[in-house]
């Protein structure tokens, strides 16, 4: 029943998007339809989850949420189809790919497919996916409302305790759609949305290249082959979905013949990106600003544009205002007299992430030359060797028409880089949108390098092949990882089988005091075999009696991971006898680090100390 309801919801979303885009044609229609379907489904499911929180009935639970979404979207489709048919846009046919473009396309598509297959046959992986994307997706449907994932977080916030798994308070547009899939078809489909988004991004970049007067194939291939895209296409992150929303928004907005409905749709899609990923809010607002500029010769009022921009994220922002007095929680903001409470920059650890990529900030401009490949970094050789020179040439010369698309690229790139410096966000994946948009300039090699386009094309295709070869090398560790869930998570998510084998219904406290890797244990602890309840927090330095008082009511076990430089006595001082019993501990050495994993049972005496 749940699977059928979810299929109906996805089919209704697809029908709605196809009706919405019936005046478009070609690849642009496919790109805009896919993204519109996602934003529509996410928005309706969010509203259902919000209504559930208000009424106290778990409307998202089981099949009810997808069924309500299917009905609503079916009705909206019928209303759309009653509108007078407009004039269909002439189909912009893509030229046939040249041999070198075909090589790049097959290479990029091949390595993406390999990544998807490798990730699909293994249990879900990826640090952010396991620590909060998938737990949030599960929790939304287990609890049946948008406040279910933030319930314990809110309790910690009210008690002035350190907030454990703070990303659970981010807007959950991606997770509410992902959760429907997980609930209906299991977590072997966790990769699906991101993989589709990768293809949509490549199609959108191809359309942008044609709009610039170039050829679509190499830009699409370079986007497919970007290591960051390849690695994320197999994991339940949300970067690709968010980028796909903004690529589609820019495509709709920057059409030469963009009308009133195009500007409105672009604002909705930009709002969809903001509802998917908070870090994309500055760029989404920049796209909204472009919509406001574009509306001058179109009869659209600015309040309408702002309203439709807010709609996809409205439920999530309203939830965070109600719970934490800050729509963007956990991001702490001070805007003049307005102070929005949240966590400090150090709590995120974002500034510290810079060390993972460059020895000092001054090295960022050359980072793309020595970049690492993973799900958080890697643009590919084609970016630095071909795309950046092409964008510079296009900007310095007047070879390429200064269209609205060019202006959009310039605004998005500037705002994205400025936001990364201002906040700061020193992580390469947060620049994925300007990177993929820059690939579009690679379609105009003939115009930009007149007389030398063959040499540049050869350099471009070698760059994609080199990137693909290195990516396959980096994928080898995932390819050779064990497929069995217990062994996989023991290696990839620091969850020992003795913890993964806890009985159904167990309430587990996951202590992240002594290693950030304990965050990645959340999803495996929740779902290895059967459902458990996992609460995240940090109790280092707390006396055992106080620890018992701060544990959630009814906690059965404590799981934690400690780095090698942590003294075991530091851990056992918190979880000490007789209030806690050490069930098992083991030291495991991986390829890059050695850690100790611990499982404690909570005594009856300790549970009695928990607040009522």
């Amino acid at each position: 029943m749940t699977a059928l309801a979810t299929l109906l919801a996805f089919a209704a979303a697809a029908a709605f998007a196809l009706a919405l885009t019936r005046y478009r044609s070609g690849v642009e229609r496919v790109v805009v339809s896919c993204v519109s379907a996602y934003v529509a489904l996410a928005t309706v499911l969010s509203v259902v989850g919000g209504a559930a929180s208000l009424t106290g009935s778990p409307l998202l639970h089981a099949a009810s949420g997808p069924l309500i979404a299917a009905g609503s979207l079916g009705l909206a489709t019928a209303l759309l189809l009653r509108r007078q048919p407009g004039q269909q846009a002439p189909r912009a046919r893509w030229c046939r790919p040249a041999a070198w473009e075909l090589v790049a396309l097959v290479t990029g598509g091949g390595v993406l497919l390999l990544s998807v297959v490798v990730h699909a046959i293994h249990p879900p992986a990826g640090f952010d996916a396991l620590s909060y994307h998938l737990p949030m997706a599960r929790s939304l449907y287990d609890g049946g409302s948008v406040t279910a994932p933030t319930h314990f977080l809110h309790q910690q916030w009210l008690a002035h305790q350190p907030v454990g798994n703070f990303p659970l308070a981010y807007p959950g547009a991606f997770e509410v759609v992902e959760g429907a899939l997980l609930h209906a078809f299991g977590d072997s489909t966790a990769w699906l949305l991101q993989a589709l988004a990768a293809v949509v991004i490549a199609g959108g970049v191809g359309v942008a290249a044609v709009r610039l007067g170039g050829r679509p194939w190499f830009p699409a291939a370079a986007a497919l082959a970007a290591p960051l895209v390849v690695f994320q296409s197999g994991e339940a992150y949300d970067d690709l979905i968010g980028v796909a929303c903004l690529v589609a928004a820019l495509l709709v907005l920057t059409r030469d013949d963009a009308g009133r409905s195009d500007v409105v749709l672009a604002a909705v899609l930009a709002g969809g990106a903001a509802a998917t990923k908070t870090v994309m809010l500055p760029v989404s607002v920049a796209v909204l600003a472009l919509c406001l500029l574009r509306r001058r010769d179109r009869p659209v009022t600015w309040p309408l544009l702002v309203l439709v921009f807010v709609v996809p994220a409205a439920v999530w922002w309203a939830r965070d205002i109600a719970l934490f007095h800050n729509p963007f929680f956990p991001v702490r903001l001070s805007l003049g007299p307005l102070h929005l409470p949240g966590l400090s920059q150090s709590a995120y650890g974002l500034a510290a992430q810079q060390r993972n990529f460059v020895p000092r900030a001054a090295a960022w401009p050359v980072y793309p030359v020595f970049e690492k490949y993973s799900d958080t970094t890697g643009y590919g050789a084609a970016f630095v060797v071909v795309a950046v020179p092409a964008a510079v040439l296009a900007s310095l010369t007047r070879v390429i028409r200064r269209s609205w698309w060019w202006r959009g690229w310039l605004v998005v790139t500037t705002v994205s880089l400025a936001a990364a410096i201002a906040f700061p966000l020193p992580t390469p994946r947060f620049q994925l949108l300007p990177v993929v948009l820059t690939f579009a300039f690679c379609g105009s090699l003939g115009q930009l390098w007149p007389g030398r386009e063959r040499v540049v094309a050869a350099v471009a295709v070698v760059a994609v092949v080199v990137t693909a070869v290195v990516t396959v090398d980096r994928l080898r560790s995932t390819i050779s990882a064990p497929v069995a869930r217990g062994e996989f998570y023991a290696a990839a998510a620091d969850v020992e089988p003795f913890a993964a084998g806890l009985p159904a219904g167990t309430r587990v406290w996951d202590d992240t005091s002594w290693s950030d890797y304990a965050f990645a244990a959340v999803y495996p602890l929740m779902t290895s075999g059967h459902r458990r309840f996992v609460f995240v927090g940090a109790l280092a330095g707390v006396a055992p009696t106080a620890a018992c008082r701060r544990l959630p009511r009814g906690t059965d076990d404590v799981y934690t991971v400690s780095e090698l430089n942590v003294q075991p006595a530091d851990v056992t001082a918190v979880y000490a006898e007789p209030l806690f019993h050490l069930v098992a501990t083991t030291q495991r050495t991986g390829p890059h680090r050695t850690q100790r994993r611990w499982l404690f049972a909570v005594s009856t005496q300790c549970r009695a100390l928990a607040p009522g």
Partner: protein
Amino acid sequence: MSRRRPDDDARPPAPRPWLRLLVVLQLLALLGYVALHSPLMPTIARAVGVHPPDFCYFTCR
């Protein structure tokens, strides 16, 4: 990337000299990228006084 036919009347655009320099720089950037993503990477890192990362391409895990 259109192939020119012999009967085309228009003469091919004259390559700009600075474009040649740009292409040379692109080739050097590609070579540098390949070297930094090859088993040579730890050696290069040590040569420029940077601590090599905890992995190396193609050789060790």
